[in-house]
């Protein structure tokens, strides 16, 4: 009885949040279904797929947008923040999967939802490394950027050489991501704004966005 009530509550909560998320992207893709498995289901899944319960087995499904396998591994006991034999932290890998043009639209976002649901850390400590948001600023569509910001990604992160997340979006020409960051409050220093407009005066959208991001 109590379980049913909980399930109903959870479902209702999801329905109230979902439209808000869905309203954001202009192209109205149906919101991807986020897989969820119980521990026995997950264990059966990884046994069937003959996957060891190790973080390094996340790499391939994350990069190919296979949210179901990611969910299975995490629900079967892999720690989303375990870096053993991982080339990069899981969430950063998930953002870099946006660069894979073969991925179905929304696949990277679904994987990111799964990782966040399992407690993947959004921000990292090492200053010279890129953050997940920084990688998303390079490769990902605006909804991914918004989702990471919503999860608490540090919008003020800069690399050792002073490239901010917003600068990175402009440098790689990902203006959708730049717009999402500016809407969330990211701003450019005069030094950065000047460098970003150099040789790009003809690009009206870029000029407008840089100007919007100038100042406070």
């Amino acid at each position: 009885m109590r379980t049913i009530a909980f399930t109903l509550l959870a479902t209702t909560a999801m329905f109230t949040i979902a439209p808000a998320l869905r309203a954001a992207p202009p192209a109205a893709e149906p919101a991807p279904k986020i897989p969820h498995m119980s521990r026995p289901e997950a264990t059966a899944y990884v046994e069937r797929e003959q996957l060891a319960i190790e973080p390094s087995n996340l790499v391939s499904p994350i990069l190919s947008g296979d949210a179901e396998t990611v969910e299975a591994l995490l629900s079967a006991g892999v720690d989303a923040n375990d870096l053993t034999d991982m080339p990069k932290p899981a969430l950063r890998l998930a953002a870099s999967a946006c660069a894979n043009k073969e991925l179905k639209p929304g696949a990277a976002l679904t994987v990111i939802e799964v990782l966040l649901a399992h407690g993947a850390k959004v921000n990292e400590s090492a200053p010279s490394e890129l953050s997940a948001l920084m990688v998303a600023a390079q490769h990902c569509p605006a909804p991914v950027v918004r989702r990471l910001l919503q999860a608490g990604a540090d919008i003020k992160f800069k690399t050792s050489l002073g490239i901010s997340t917003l600068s990175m979006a402009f440098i790689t020409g990902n203006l959708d991501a730049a717009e999402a960051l500016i809407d969330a409050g990211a701003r450019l220093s005069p030094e950065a704004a000047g460098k970003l407009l150099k040789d790009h005066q003809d690009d009206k959208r870029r000029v407008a966005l840089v100007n919007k991001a100038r100042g406070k």
Partner: protein
Amino acid sequence: MSMIRCIALVPVLGLLAAPAVEAARPPKAPPPPSTESLIHQAKVAVRDGTAEPERDLAPMLERLRTTSVESDQRDLIYAIEELGRHDSANPASVKAYLREAAPPVLLAVARSKSDGLVRCNALMLLRTLNVKPEVLDEAIALAAADTSADKQAIQFRGRLLAGWKTNQPRNDEPPVSSATGTTAKEKAALDFLRRQHENVSSDNLGQAAMNADTEVVAALLDAGMDPNATLVAGMHPLSYAVGAGCAMERANLAARLATIDVLIQHGADVTLKDNGGATILVSAVNCPLPVIEKLLAAGAKVKDSEDRFSPLEMAFANGRWDIATLLVAKGARLSKKSIDKLFFEKPTDPDKLALIRRATAANKK
């Protein structure tokens, strides 16, 4: 009188009789040693570090040249493989001798009408010995031209050798440490390496340096490995110790410093660059500061006008302000222009800004 005559006669008779006797019944020369005992003698001498190639190894090669007994050929080839393997913990003088002296015999076996498998093994043994490219070329050519019943197998071995020739390890031969044989130091090092199942190769020197396995590094150097051997991508043992080694944090700092010390004491050159032009300080950007201090103390240069990317730029790019501070104190400088190019936005932290100002200031003297 008669006695004297008798004595005088014996040698005369002896001289006269000898040819006749020999023709009738050959004198009993000692029977030639068995192949098994030749192999045993060689292995014992090599293991004890007392091997003299002409005495202990040459007879095996001579037997392989002359015998047509298939099992002997097979056993001899296996023995030469064990003793001459280029990365084994056997004395450098043994490996060098077999690398030089075995190929003519092995090529003769490969050309002969011997058993097909024996001929194949003779060819592949050239790879194990890490023979010179000219010898490989000869083997590849004879295998390609083979028309015997076993030509398929022989030609396949030739292709294996050809493939290996393009990827073979280089600089993997330790110089022969002394003309007289194995020194006590070399012997002790080889015994240690054999017990630890460590290969004696420059590749393994790089691995041990990367893992900061100081004892193995020291033993490999004592066994005669070149502390400046060229490894993958033109890197050297020292670049493994500070580059991949520091990046992977495989060992504690004390072990890493000890490994670097051993390499430098044995003559590792801190001014070498890899194929990408990276100096040792550029490679060491992931290391803790004491490693950088040690490299500087050993003579690593903070600046080199030919560098595409200087150690200071590398330190800035990796957010290593501690290394950058040390390098600037030691005289490393960058032009204002390269600082502008390097930093997309300059830092706002006053200490970091002050360091950048010092880095672009004129060098006193």
